[in-house]
């Protein structure tokens, strides 16, 4: 016996049942996997922070290789000596600072609250690294990253990532050949916090000029590149006061 699938009542009931079934299945899957996903994201953050300060398994000039997931917790506590939270003039230590959600902090700042700014201080072979998390907008969605500075405010390493930039174009901000260009650039221009611009046509594709506050842009990814420039500049403005206190000429 065939049901009359054209009746309005059938359509409404079908839609309702379908929504309930799909909703239940998705809710069940999301809640049963959420712990594992959160843990993966936490470890990834640690890997990213270590990557920015040069603790990684990169070989030659090829691809990005993080510290393996199973060792990352140990390496993180070994190399990251201090985690600070800057709140206005107040600086507090907090060893969960790397879990601070920058997006929530930006919203809080918009609502008039003081923004919590995390800084991670790393130590590798006696050299100090100040690692600052960043967050900005790409072409399609969010981009974020970490920038590691020394006490002269020269970049020692960066890591970028993105939610949904175009593969082959904007998504290449997380490629070695783009990120490695930032190393050695200063975020200062004189005494100004200029950041580092992703520039087209700066006639320096090998990035040999390290004092121009510019790196070579990615072809076909203008808006993502501009997003990276803006993200670095904004972040440096936020951290300016703190960076002044650590700066050594």
């Amino acid at each position: 016996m065939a049901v009359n699938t054209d009746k309005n009542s059938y359509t409404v009931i079908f839609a309702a049942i379908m929504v309930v079934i799909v909703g239940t299945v998705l809710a069940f899957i999301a809640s049963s996997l959420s712990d594992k996903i959160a843990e993966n994201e936490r470890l990834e953050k640690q890997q990213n922070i270590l990557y920015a300060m040069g603790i990684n398994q990169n070989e030659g000039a090829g691809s990005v290789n993080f510290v393996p997931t199973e060792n990352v917790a140990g390496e993180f506590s070994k190399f990251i000596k201090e985690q600070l939270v800057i709140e206005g003039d107040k600086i507090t230590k907090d060893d969960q600072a790397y879990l601070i959600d920058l997006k929530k902090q930006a919203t809080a700042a918009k609502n008039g609250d003081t923004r919590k700014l995390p800084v991670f201080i790393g130590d590798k072979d006696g050299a100090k690294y100040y690692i600052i998390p960043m967050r900005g907008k790409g072409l399609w969605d969010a981009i974020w990253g970490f920038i590691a500075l020394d006490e002269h405010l020269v970049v020692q390493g960066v890591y970028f990532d993105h939610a949904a930039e175009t593969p082959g174009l904007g998504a290449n901000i997380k490629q070695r050949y783009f990120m490695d260009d930032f190393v050695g650039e200063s975020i200062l221009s004189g005494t100004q916090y200029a950041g580092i611009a992703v520039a087209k046509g700066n006639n320096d594709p090998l990035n040999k000029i390290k004092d121009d506050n510019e790196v070579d842009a990615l072809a076909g990814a203008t808006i993502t590149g501009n997003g990276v420039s803006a993200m670095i500049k904004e972040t440096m403005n936020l951290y300016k006061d703190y960076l002044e206190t650590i700066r050594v000429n």
Partner: protein
Amino acid sequence: MALLSKKDANLILDPLADNNPITIQVLGICSALAITAELKASVVMAISVLFVLAMGNVVISLMRNIIPSKIRIIVQLIVVATLVIIVDQVLKAFAYELSKTLAVFVGLIITNCIIMGRFEAFALANGPWKSFLDGIGNSLGYGVILIIVGFFRELLGSGTLFGIPVLGDPITKTGLYATGYENNGFMIIPPAALIVVGIIIWVQRSRNKALIEDN
């Protein structure tokens, strides 16, 4: 006896050539333009679509007699979206690295017209096994074109394949670049994919006169 009857085998083989979803049916063009700037993305997209289209076709085919025709498009959309989200969540929990690579494709798969197109044209009228084969065949046909386009665009646009330099180093001028060859930046941007797809269609039609429509 053959593994598949001749009719079933044709469900897989036809979309690979004479009924190719991209070059003949003109489905899935948007993603073919968007993500073929590099070969790796093409391969990942082809595999993802293979999975979603085969599964989705089966699910829709099983439901084909109870779906109210007035809201069938919405039902199809929900089925695709659910499948894609489940895959994405499971990968995030168990293969985190892979899920990062796939993240950008999730939205593209849901809105990929090849999936809705096959649901409408085939799964709603055929049984689950045939629909499964149709899903495999069409996604392979789609994947083949994606990989061909990705191959040429990455090779000519960036001088690499799967991210590995094959023509030498464009900056220090080694390999082919020593002779004055330059990467063609035009190949990186989406319109280049349209030209490559156009050339594939041209080659295909010139080899098979049956595909040319009379005016």
